[in-house]
């Protein structure tokens, strides 16, 4: 896959390394913002986490931040692929990372039918401890400083997560 001309040459090496035959996506690395368009597949989860780690390495983020972001982004992209887009091959997951002076913001957008986080039962309630699912949101809230879900104007859900640096 050829990268678009708009990507700075310095970023092409990183982006090319991330593109292989099993993944059809686009990586834009522009200074302190990176945007990914990922297929609605399980493989996209690891890909998003890998690119998040590379993004963070540019800023010398500590191990705790790297681990926290890794946990949170895997859960957010899992939700987008599985629950939002229901692994529909015609829908994408868009992930963006941006860094300001003292915080990292990650947005994960799906093209699903909306999501109400209040509708998810508390997995730490004794009644729910033996349920096999429902812990992803708990991890996102635990490992990031702020997490909010927004309805996108064009449909789907955007989860916005902030980690203070």
């Amino acid at each position, binding site marked *: 896959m050829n990268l678009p001309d708009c990507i700075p040459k310095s970023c092409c090496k990183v982006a090319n390394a991330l593109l292989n035959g099993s993944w059809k996506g686009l990586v834009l690395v522009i200074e302190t913002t990176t945007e990914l368009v990922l297929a609605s597949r399980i493989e996209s989860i690891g890909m998003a986490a890998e690119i998040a780690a590379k993004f963070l390495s540019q800023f010398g983020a500590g191990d705790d931040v790297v681990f926290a972001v890794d946990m949170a982004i895997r859960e957010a992209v899992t939700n987008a692929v599985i629950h939002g887009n229901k692994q529909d091959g015609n829908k994408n997951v868009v992930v963006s990372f941006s860094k300001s002076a003292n915080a990292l913001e990650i947005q994960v957008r799906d093209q699903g039918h909306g999501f109400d986080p209040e509708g998810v039962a508390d997995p730490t309630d004794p009644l729910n401890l*033996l349920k096999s699912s429902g812990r*992803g949101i708990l991890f996102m809230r*635990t490992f990031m400083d702020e997490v909010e879900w927004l309805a996108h104007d064009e449909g789907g859900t955007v989860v916005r997560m902030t980690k203070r640096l």
Partner: protein
Amino acid sequence: MAELEIKERQAGDVTVLDMDGKVTIGEGSVALRGAIRRLLEEGKKKILLNLAGVGYIDSSGIGELVSSFTAINKEGGQLKLLNLTQKLQDLLAITKLLTVFDVYENEQEALSSFK
């Protein structure tokens, strides 16, 4: 290389699964589910998961541990955990599952605890 390698050994009537890799959504979780299902079919109901080599687990992997626990209990068996990494221990604390699982740091102690 597989995302999760599972090696099986027998210690008396306890089956120990030495796990190495990631227990995450997809391959890792499916491998764990398959291993537990096969052991139950073989009538092996005392199972010790050695998680020393599991450096990463996500909510799906945690969910698979819970599913394994309930499936084995349902068959009248026992599932116990051995050698949790600090990160996995933290995740089980966050999810309050340390109150559910029987966790050991010493294999002999873990093996002796099975009834």
